[in-house]
């Protein structure tokens, strides 16, 4: 198994004056579901944006071993879905295909329909995103992120704001997609249920020590003797 994402001595934050995490080094192996964990404002989403190429690392090196294709080779599901409100769900999925392929319109429609079927949304293809529930919006965003068959899928808090059953269904969908499509998935989450259910390995960002506090499998992190890792996994307040 080779590494698809390699981070060396990464500084994570918005500006050099506001560094959240320093000297972050980790690898994401090809084909695994990798979690970025941490408390709110620990820099999880910022790190995901760096992997997506939307934000530059403040320092260090971030290498993505992706094919040098003319089209994007990673798909991103943003926290609120970020679907285009003026387009139907199907048109949202069709957009990257229209931009990056020479496929005729009927083929693009068929592919979009298939992607939506993949995430259980075939009945909602002509619906506007505003009419969808939170869980459905996230499914639609995953379908759009998968439109160009990227080897790497980035998911920003897929379970946040969802009821436990919808959240579990989405977790199941992520695992099924990752295993069946051979995807490498990087997930930002702080949902304990999702961590145990879907992650192969993960890192825990800590804004107090401004470092990666722990990394390994969820089982290894559960068993960690580091007090703040214990606080995170047992949902206990650090300062009472």
């Amino acid at each position, binding site marked *: 198994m080779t590494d698809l994402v390699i981070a060396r001595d990464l500084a994570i934050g918005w500006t050099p004056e506001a560094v959240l995490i320093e000297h972050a080094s980790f690898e994401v192996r090809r084909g695994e579901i990798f979690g970025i964990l941490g408390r709110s404002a620990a820099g999880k989403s910022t790190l995901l944006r760096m992997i997506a190429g939307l934000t530059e690392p403040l320092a260090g090196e971030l290498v993505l071993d992706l094919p040098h294709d003319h089209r994007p080779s990673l*798909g991103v599901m943003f926290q609120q879905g970020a679907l*285009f409100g003026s387009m139907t769900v199907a048109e949202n999925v069709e957009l990257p295909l229209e*931009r*990056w392929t020479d496929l005729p319109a009927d083929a693009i429609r068929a592919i979009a329909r298939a992607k939506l079927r993949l995430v259980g949304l075939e009945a909602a293809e002509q619906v506007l995103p505003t009419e969808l529930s939170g869980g459905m919006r996230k499914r639609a965003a995953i379908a*759009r992120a998968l439109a*160009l068959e990227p080897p790497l899928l980035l998911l920003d808090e897929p379970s946040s704001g969802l009821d436990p059953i919808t959240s579990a269904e989405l977790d199941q969908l992520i695992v099924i997609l990752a295993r069946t499509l051979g995807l490498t998935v990087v997930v930002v989450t702080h949902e304990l249920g999702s961590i145990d259910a879907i992650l192969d390995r993960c890192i825990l960002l800590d804004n107090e020590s401004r470092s990666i506090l722990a990394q390994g499998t969820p089982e290894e992190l559960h068993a960690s003797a580091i007090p703040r890792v214990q606080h995170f996994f047992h949902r206990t307040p650090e300062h009472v």
Partner: protein
Amino acid sequence: MPAWQILGRGDRLELVGELRLDDAAAIWSVLRERPTPQTIDVSRVTLIDGTVMALLAELTRGVPAELVGARPEIAELAHLYLGAGPIRPRPPHEAALARLGGASRRLAHSLGDVVRFAGELAAAVVSVARREQTANWRSVPMFIERAGADGLPIVLLLNFLVGFVGAYQSTDQLRQFGANIYVADIIGVSVTRELAPLITAIIVSGRSGAAFAAELGTMRVSEEIDALRTMGIAPVPYLVLPRVVALAVVAPVLTLLGDVAGVLGGLVVGVTSLGLTSRGYLTELRSMVVASDVWTGLVKSAMFGISIALIGCRQGLTTRGAAAGVGHGTTATVVECLFSIVVLDTLCTVVFRGFGL
């Protein structure tokens, strides 16, 4: 006799009795007159509430003050408000020069944004011309409809009223010299060269410029712009160019129709107040207003349209924060648009006059 006392000397402060919200104002007036304490003795405090503890926290900001003699419940409250260590010091008061420097830095940053946007726009035009990027041309008719057809009634009404008021204001002076017929000249030239392009541009700024800023700003804060980038679709060619093209087309068309409405406003006053006939008014108008009056107005309005679209889109794409950021961007768009319209109008007038137009 108050239920509380503040004793001690120098950097030692002793609190006594019950210190509550009801007495907080009086307590604060005493505390703020004293030097910052190093030690706060609360051994004789029977009750202290959160408000007074917050005042103590403010008083000891930046100083590692020690709380002594605290009973467990007071110690807990103190930990909550004062924390384990000293509270961070207040930021030093910014000197006038530093504030000026900060404002200059922000201005330079904002100018940098403008230059960056101009560069992105130039790159977008080139990449669309080379077919490396796509613009969403399909959306152009929709923008033309929204900015043009939907805005037509208000453009016609306001230009009619401006022509009407302009003519009405001239009636007394013209009557005095028996020059009633020249109302057609005054309205014809002023409407076609200046008033219709300006009034139309102001309406387009308020309707379309603000709408572009709000649309793109909302897309930005809801991460839709980032989503486009991750799909390899550059936002400037995809979102900005269609809007620029739409307003470059719509603004002159609206202005031309505004010319007609303004001239008709003058006609109504000429016929009803100055005793002119419609034929006489229109004959005089044709003899005075030449083609260059009309087309210079149309060229100006095309430039206004382009600048309104660019300002609205730039503000939208650089929106920060949530709803408040969108509101700020929309307001800034209208202000910047009005400013740029007047500046462009001045430049155009000078340049056209230089060419004898």
